[in-house]
C-alpha cells in the first residue's frame, strides 16, 4: 500500500531538477535536503532517545570548520571528508560523555553550554577560525568523476546522501538497537533492569546522531562554500530542533517535513513577507501549542478523524 506513494516520491525527488522552474529552486531543494539530514540526525536523540540537544549546531558546524581547514590546508576531498567526520565523531563523543551526565533539562543545558563553547571558539579564536568573516573555500568535490559544481549535480549528490541517511534511519529505527534506544527513552530504569547498558546505548545514539549532523555540516560547507560562526549559533541548534518538533519527533518523515517548512519560510517566504521572522516565531508557537506532536502525526490524526467522521456519515 505504501509502496506506491514512496516510489512516486522517489521519482519526484530524483527528477526534481528537470521539472523545477529554475536553478534557484533546485538550490533551495538542496538546502532542504541537507537540513533534513541534519534534522534526521537531531531526531535520533530528540525523538528516539528522548534527549533534547540544543548544542547540535556545534557538531554541524565543527564538521564544516574541520572540512574548511582541511581544504585550506590542501587536502583532497576524500581526505577532507574523513577528517571532517572524524573530528565530528570525536567532538560528539566528548559532547556525549559530558551531556549524558544529565537527563531532561540537565541534558538540554549541558548541550547549550557545549554548543556555546564551540560557538565562542568559532567566533573569537580568530587566528584559527577567522572569526566573524568565517572561512571561504573554493571548489566542490568530484566524486566518481561527477562534478558537483552545478546546482543540479550538487542536488543529485545531496539527494544520494539524503537517501542514504534516510535508509540508515529506517534500518536503525526498526533494528533491535533502535528498539533498545526507544526503550531507554520510555523506561530507562526498566531497561537497565532488563540488562541493557543504558548509558552506552545513548552514547552510541549520540555518535550516530552526531555523524549525520556532521555529514549535513559538510554538505552545508560544500553548498555554501564557506563557514561562519552563525552556523554554530544557538539559534541554529534551535532551528534544527524546530524542524524536528514541527514535523514530528520520532517519525522518519517529520524532520523532513520540518526542514521543508523552516527552509521555505526562511528563504522563500521571506521574499514575500517582510516580517518573516515574526511569522517564523508565530509558526513555532502555534505548532507547539496546537500540534504538540508535530505536523506529521497531527495531520495523520486529523486525517484519521476525518476518515472516521466520513465513515460515520
Amino acid at each position, binding site marked *: 500500500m505504501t509502496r506506491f506513494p514512496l516510489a512516486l516520491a522517489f521519482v519526484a525527488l530524483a527528477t526534481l531538477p*528537470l521539472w523545477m*522552474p529554475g*536553478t534557484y529552486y533546485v*538550490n533551495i531543494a538542496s538546502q532542504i535536503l541537507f537540513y533534513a539530514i541534519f534534522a534526521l540526525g537531531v531526531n535520533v536523540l530528540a525523538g528516539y532517545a528522548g534527549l533534547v540537544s540544543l548544542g547540535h549546531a556545534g557538531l554541524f558546524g565543527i564538521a564544516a570548520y574541520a572540512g574548511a581547514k582541511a581544504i585550506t590546508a590542501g587536502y583532497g576531498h576524500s581526505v577532507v571528508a574523513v577528517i571532517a567526520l572524524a573530528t565530528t565523531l570525536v567532538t560528539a563523543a566528548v559532547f556525549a560523555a559530558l551531556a549524558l551526565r544529565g537527563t531532561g533539562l540537565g541534558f538540554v543545558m549541558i548541550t547549550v553550554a557545549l554548543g556555546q563553547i564551540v560557538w565562542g571558539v568559532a567566533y573569537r579564536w580568530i587566528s584559527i577560525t577567522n572569526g566573524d*568573516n568565517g572561512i571561504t573555500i573554493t571548489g566542490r568535490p568530484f566524486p566518481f568523476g561527477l562534478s558537483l559544481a552545478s546546482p543540479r549535480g550538487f542536488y543529485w549528490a545531496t539527494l544520494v546522501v539524503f537517501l542514504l541517511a534516510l535508509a540508515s534511519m529506517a534500518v536503525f529505527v526498526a533494528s533491535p538497537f533502535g528498539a533498545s534506544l526507544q526503550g531507554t527513552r520510555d523506561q530507562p530504569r526498566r531497561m537497565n533492569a532488563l540488562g541493557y547498558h543504558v548509558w552506552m546505548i545513548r552514547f552510541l545514539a549520540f555518535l550516530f546522531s552526531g555523524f549525520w549532523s556532521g555529514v549535513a555540516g559538510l554538505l552545508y560547507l560544500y553548498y*555554501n562554500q564557506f563557514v561562519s560562526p552563525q*552556523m554554530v549559533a544557538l539559534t541554529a541548534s534551535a532551528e534544527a530542533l524546530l524542524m524536528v518538533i514541527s514535523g514530528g519527533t520520532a517519525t522518519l518523515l517529520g524532520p523532513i517535513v520540518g526542514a521543508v517548512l523552516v527552509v521555505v519560510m*526562511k528563504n522563500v517566504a521571506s521574499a514575500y513577507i517582510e*516580517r*518573516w521572522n515574526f511569522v517564523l516565531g508565530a509558526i513555532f508557537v502555534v505548532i507547539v501549542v496546537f500540534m504538540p506532536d508535530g505536523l506529521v502525526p497531527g495531520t495523520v490524526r486529523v486525517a484519521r478523524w476525518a476518515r472516521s467522521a466520513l465513515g460515520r456519515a
Partner: protein
Amino acid sequence: MALSVDRRRFLVGAGGLTLATTLPRAARAQSRPVKIGLLTVKTGPLASGGIQMEQGTIRFLKDRNYTLAGRKVELIVGDTGGNPAGTKTKIQELVERDGVDMIFGPLAAFELLAISDYAAQAKMPILSLAAAEDMTQRKPNAYFVRASGTSAQYMHPLADYAAKEMKLKRLITIADDFAFGHEQMAGFQRVFEDAGGRIVKKLWPPLVTPDYTPYIAQISGADAVVQGFAGSNPLKFMKQYQDTGLKLPVLGNGTAGDEALLKSYGDEAVGMISCSAYTGDLDTPSNKKLIDGMVKDYGNIPGLYSAGLYINGQVAEAALEKTGGKTDDREAFIRALRAVSLTDTPRGPFTFDRLGNVVGTFYIRRTERKGDKLVNTTIKSYPKVSQFWTYDEKWFLAQPVYSRDYPPLKS
C-alpha cells in the same frame, strides 16, 4: 505543457553555464525593466543600516521616477537576515529566479565574502558598501564596484589629520574584533606611524559586547583614542567611555560619526573627530535632494548607508546612460560602471580605479551641538583619496593585507 518547455530549457542549459540566469535570452527584450536586486538586512541586529540602505535606494529611484536611461526600473529587495548563508540564498534568488541585472549591497563584509565567488561566476555586477579590502585589492572580483571605500580608506586620511593637524603622538585604537575593525585600524596605524606617530595599544572587543569597560579600563598612556566600531556599538562605547570619566579626545571612523547615528548620541559625542566618505553638510544639489527626500519620506537624516545606496543608484544610472540602457552585455556594463565619473553626488566628485574601488573625497568632521541636535561640521576635505592612499599601488599590494596583527605593534 509547462514540463516540456522546462525540459527543453534544461537540455539547452545543461551544456552551458548553469549559474547564469535560466531565462531564455530571447525573452530578455530590451523593453523589460532593468531589475536591481538589493541585498540588505531588514531583520535582526544589523537591521538599522540595512533599512537605511533600502530607504536610500528607494529615495534615489523616486527621484528618478523609477526610470534610468529611459528604462523602467524594478527594485527587488532581499532580506539576508545579516547571515552569510542567508545572503547566499538571497543572491541566488535574485540572480536565478528574478533575473536581476545588478546587485546593490550587501551590508556586511562577511556577507559580501560569502557571495563574492558566486557573483563572479554568475558575472553579476555588485555595487556594495561592504568595505572588505581584498575585494578590490589582492582578490579582486571583476564584477565588483565600490563607491564608498575600503575599510582603511576612511582611516588613512584620519590618521594623516591626527598626526599632522592634531599633532597627536601616541594613540590607542579600539575597534570591533572582526575584519572591518582590523582593516581600519591597520590602515590607520600604517599612515599614522609613517607620519611619526605611535600606536601604543590595540584593543579588540568582540562584536557582541554589552559592556566595553573592561577594555576602556585598559586605555592609558596615550594622547587620544581611535574607535572603529560599527552598528550600535559606537553609541555604547562613547556612553561608557564618558561614564568612566576618561577625557582623552576620541577619533572615529565613518560608522562611528555617521549622521544617521547622531540622533541617538548624547553630549558624549560632542567633539568627536571622524572621517567619512559622506558628510551631511556637503553642499551639492544631489545631497540637498537626498536629505530633503529622506526627511520628508522617513523623517530620517541620511547617513553613510542611505547616501551610499543613493550614490550607487547614480553610478548605475551613469553606466546605463553610457550603454544606452543595455545590461545584457555584462562585460560592457561592468566596464561602463567602472568608467563612471561623477561630480554632483552626495559625497562629491569621484571616479573608480582599475580595481573598481572609488577614488574620491573623504571628509574630516567634528561633531558639534547645534541647538538640540548634534551635527557634523566638516573641517577638512581630502580630495581624490585612493584605496592605496599615497603609497605606490604595487608596493601596497605586495604587503600583507591589513589584519589584526599586521602591521604589528612596535615594541
